[in-house]
């Protein structure tokens, strides 16, 4: 039993963090230069390698099609998105769209106005569909695991912003982080994010190894991680007080992405119904 990433994966995490801090909105060409694009499809990397990147991309609120393109695992040079719950993220930034009936459609359609303005969410115009490679069950597992990892990145970052703030902000002559009403709320957010991290890494390992528990691991991880990310953002906004409620502060963008993740492929309640069905077959 070993629950640590390899030195190569730790290096990849460090490189990714440094690169993404300098370039939070990288183009697909930049990511291709790093050797990241198509890493899963080519077999050059395991899902655990990709997992490191998905989490790091969540931390910087990356708004592009890289994650879905990896999850789709389609051959060729085209950039792919995936239709999720009837909508397609980054519709106008991709060439092809994978649909749950495993068709590859030409990326065309109307881009919609959304709460999270960085999603590029669109409604696919049905045209040019042809059969795509793979099975939806596996795509969905990879997608749930990737969403969980992205949520872990977002939850961690939102919590770090809160911790930094309450260490500096003073009221009534003390740093507000000394007040237990503030600190205990952030501890609860930390605990939820760490539990989610454990589940997300477990799910990533299950996907990489095609473990028998993969199906239940990915839904467990996604439900916990998305809810933990939303809670971390909400507690972080509260800890920031008024400034956390302003448009100029970055927190609302993390919050809106977390809210999208919470609903993507179903809310936690729907994932827990799946877990219950596996524990208590009727």
């Amino acid at each position: 039993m070993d629950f640590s990433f390899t030195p190569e994966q730790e290096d990849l995490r460090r490189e990714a963090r440094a690169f993404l801090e300098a370039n939070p909105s990288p183009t697909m060409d930049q990511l291709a230069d790093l050797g990241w694009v198509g890493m899963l499809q080519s077999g050059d990397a395991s899902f655990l390698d990709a997992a490191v990147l998905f989490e790091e991309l969540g931390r910087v609120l990356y708004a592009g099609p890289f994650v879905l393109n990896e999850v789709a695992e389609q051959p060729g040079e085209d950039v792919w998105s995936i239709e999720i719950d009837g909508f397609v993220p980054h519709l106008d930034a991709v060439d092809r769209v994978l649909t749950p009936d495993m068709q590859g459609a030409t990326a065309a359609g109307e881009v919609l106005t959304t709460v999270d303005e960085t999603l590029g969410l669109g409604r696919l115009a049905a045209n040019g569909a042809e059969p795509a490679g793979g099975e939806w069950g596996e795509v969905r597992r990879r997608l749930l695991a990737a969403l969980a990892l992205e949520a872990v990145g977002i939850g961690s970052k939102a919590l770090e912003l809160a911790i930094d703030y309450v260490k500096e902000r003073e009221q009534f002559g003390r740093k507000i982080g000394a007040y237990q009403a503030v600190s205990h709320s952030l501890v609860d957010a930390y605990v939820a994010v760490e539990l989610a991290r454990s589940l997300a890494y477990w799910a990533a390992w299950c996907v990489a190894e095609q473990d028998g528990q993969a199906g239940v691991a990915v839904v467990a991880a996604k439900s916990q991680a998305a809810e933990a990310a939303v809670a971390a953002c909400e507690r972080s906004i509260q800890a920031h007080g008024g400034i956390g409620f302003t448009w100029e502060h970055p927190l609302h963008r993390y919050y809106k992405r977390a809210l999208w993740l919470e609903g993507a492929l179903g809310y936690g309640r729907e994932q827990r119904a799946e877990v219950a069905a596996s524990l208590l077959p009727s």
Partner: protein
Amino acid sequence: MRCAAATQSERCSRRKLEGVDLRDTPDEAAFRQEVRAFIAENLPEASKLRGARRFEEADREWSRRLGEAGYAGLTWPAEYGGAGAPYSHQAIFLEELAAAEAPAHQGVIGIGMAGPTIMAWGTDEQKNRYLAKILTAEEIWCQGFSEPGAGSDLASVRTRIEDRGEHFLVNGQKVWSSFAHIADFCILVGLGLPDAPRYQNLTYVIADMHAPGVEVRPLVQITGQAEFNEIFFTDVQVPKENVLGEIGGGWQVAMTTLLHERGTLGFALAATLDVAVRKLIGLAKERAVTDPLLRDRIAREWIELQAVRYTNYRALTTLTKTGIPGPEGSISKLVWSEANQRLTKLALEILGSHAQLMDGGVDGAGYWQYQQLRSRGNTIEAGTSEILRNIVAERVLGLPRSR
């Protein structure tokens, strides 16, 4: 990530040697089989876990067998009679105990707290005198830390440990002491230097529980059971050579004890939660639970169990690789205690109108009723949830001290 220089097979074989792998290694799998077989052959029928229990004679026999087989001090160094085994073996041992619903060794206070403290602070004479008999369960230990006026605030203990030249004279009252009614020795913290500043005024001694002036009274809890005890010390003479550390240096010694109390606790807790979740699922199957609200909560507790389990594995990996417990480990007890409270309450809801029935041969004869009441102690014992949140806030998140 890329295998530019390495061939595909080299890269793959390297992956198998390191990195996340949640399966048992061949060595771990062999150890697990060995433990499982040992439990199957050796666990006395009378020792199988029941809902409500005080420490029975059968458990002493079970503890003796565990000691003989080398399972008592798995992570203790070989020089003190331990197995010197990796922490992963300790985790596997606890998982298998829980899966078999077997009780822990009766000497848990000795093995987990007194022993490591004696190893860290004891003289050679103390090590020779006490350590071996902890493992064999020949001598049982209890803990004399909490007092009626000193719970979370351990530094405010008032039990006096006076230096009378020839010996220490102990007067005071301790509380919440498991095993005190069968214990031979007590790790005792009291006021050694009443006039010294806070944190420099405590003395830590080994007290003989059979000495004149020691009285143990059972403390009946909300469950109706007396799992804990009060200990009264009245003019009890403790030999001078029984001090651990310096007179007035008891605080540092006590911190060693508490560090070990929470050290590998996570694995034991995850293992008991595993049993509870399995029983909960068994109950839900028996009752053919179809209510989606109940099913949602059952799924939530199963997910929480997996989260605690894999968080412990992450902590174990950190501990194994660095020798230092990582921040992951500090949250296990906090999460476990609240999960156990929710879960036992949920079981009562599934029982419905039968939730009031303590006996009568239905629904495990009061198993869940006992467990639910007992669970209220989980957020108080071994560090209240409030104290644990302070510890995480200050030591893990780096927030300013609250007091």
